């Protein structure tokens, strides 16, 4: 199970990549595997303001659905438009091609985990 270092992880299985004041958010390899083949992603439009822990969308597979929670607070500045046509990118490439939103962030959730701690969470 891939859990890249250098990313932060939420207990609700989102990952965050911090670059300057921009946070890129997606779901982990574990999350996509649990859901199975993803068929649809609902994401907020750019300009949406999010609080840390807020629901920002949902993912659906054939047999499951899951809400997405923002690990940061801030304003959505970009949305991965490729996911509309190819939601399977989240399955095939969860940490790169399957990214969901970019947020100009003002705060991080205090409960974010390191790669090692997230790995422990999954083992527990």
């Amino acid at each position: 199970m891939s859990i890249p270092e250098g990313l932060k992880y939420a207990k609700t299985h989102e990952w965050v990549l911090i670059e300057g004041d921009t946070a890129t958010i997606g779901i982990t390899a574990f999350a996509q595997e649990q859901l199975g083949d993803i068929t649809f992603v609902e994401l907020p439009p750019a300009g949406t303001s999010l609080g840390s822990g807020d629901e920002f969308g949902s993912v659906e597979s054939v047999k499951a659905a899951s809400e997405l929670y923002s690990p940061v607070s801030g304003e959505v500045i970009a949305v991965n438009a490729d996911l509309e046509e190819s939601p399977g990118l989240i399955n095939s490439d969860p940490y790169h091609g399957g990214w969901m939103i970019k947020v100009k962030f003002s705060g991080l959730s205090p409960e974010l985990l390191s790669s090692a701690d997230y790995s422990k969470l999954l083992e527990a």
Partner: protein
Amino acid sequence: MPFIPHTAEETEAMLSLLELKTLDDLFSYIPQEMRPGQFDLPDGLTEYEVIRKLEDMSGRNAGIPLNFMGAGFYNHVIPAAVDALSSRGEFLTAYTPYQAEAAQGTLQAIFEYQTAICRLFEMDVANASVYDGGSAIFEAAMMAVRATRRARLVIDSTVHPLYRKMLSTLTANLHLDIVTITNSDGLTDKNRLIAAIDENTAAVIVQNPTFFGNARDYSDVFEAAKNKGALAILSVYPVMQAVLKTPGEMGADIAVADGQSLGQPLNFGGPYLGIMSCTQKLVRQIPGRIVGRTTDQEGKTGYVLTLQAREQHIRRARATSNICSNQALCALRALMQLCLLGPQGLANAARRSLELAHYAADKIALLPKVAMLNTAPFCNEFAVRLPGKASDAVRKLAKTGILPGVLPGLWYPDADAVLLIACTEKNNEAQIDALVEALRSWSREMVI
């Protein structure tokens, strides 16, 4: 015991495998104090006795052949093949098609039903059905509330009054603001509908033909709704849709109907069929089951329930609706009806109903002191104002074996003298002549 195949020996063998002595031992987890205080039902009957009992009961309903009752529920011709085919046990006694490979018959039929509805209404997407026309309006309203995140619904008073009552009952705890636009002599001024649509409006809900039978074009109302970011919901009459301007042509976002007129007997109120369709944009908001076409491992075409992640068995409290069972068999009957009649047969039913209603209206309007209520074009149903209480006319005519229509006064103020008269292709000119004569003799008494 009826329907229980076990012999005494088998029962004993099965109990003995379980190391139990009696059937009662199976219920040891139900303590004595929770057992029934009473269970006072009659003894069972034979099949023949049951049939006789229910035949006798049905005989207590009057059989009145001269019937002009409609009000949204119409006695159209149902080809014999609809009953013959829909009563096949393979359709009748199957469950919801959860195991797709063992339910391709039901699944392909639903796919064909969805296709037929989309073509009849000129809409993008149809679901596999909801319960009836009223629950379809309710679900459509909920779709609009979710899609727009607004809570105001503007509804025309010439939408079926019982559907409006259902809408208010079913939404009682949802803090919605339902605004009803009043009519004048059965016709609502479209400008008043347009004026009521504001920036907080989730949807405008209208009906075609209206409860009073008028055919309307709501294109301008729907355009106004679109400009305010509200959705346009149109409830229609499927048979009449063979000839009338379609929901798609008018720009409806959601088109619904009661499918009773497509192959369902009147059945004293049900089961009927809630037809729902919408634009592609709203596909993820439409509740209930939907069938999609796909392929199997070997590339062969097949059908499955799809988009299930919106439904209650997956989304639970966050589902688009709580609907589970729908009206699958009624949808199948509607599909069979549409296939047997074809575009020509359906149009013939609509046209014959139209021409008979106009034949009737032309004659009834000439009766002394009787006035047509409909000032706009109407379809197979129309309302007249009588020179006295319409309920008196119905009471009198029923005694002579004619049911002349229904009474809008049950639901509308100042309508005590109004009678709503419907015709279908099952009526004929001779029946209408008898109705006209009966009304003439009653109204003559009134005038004197």
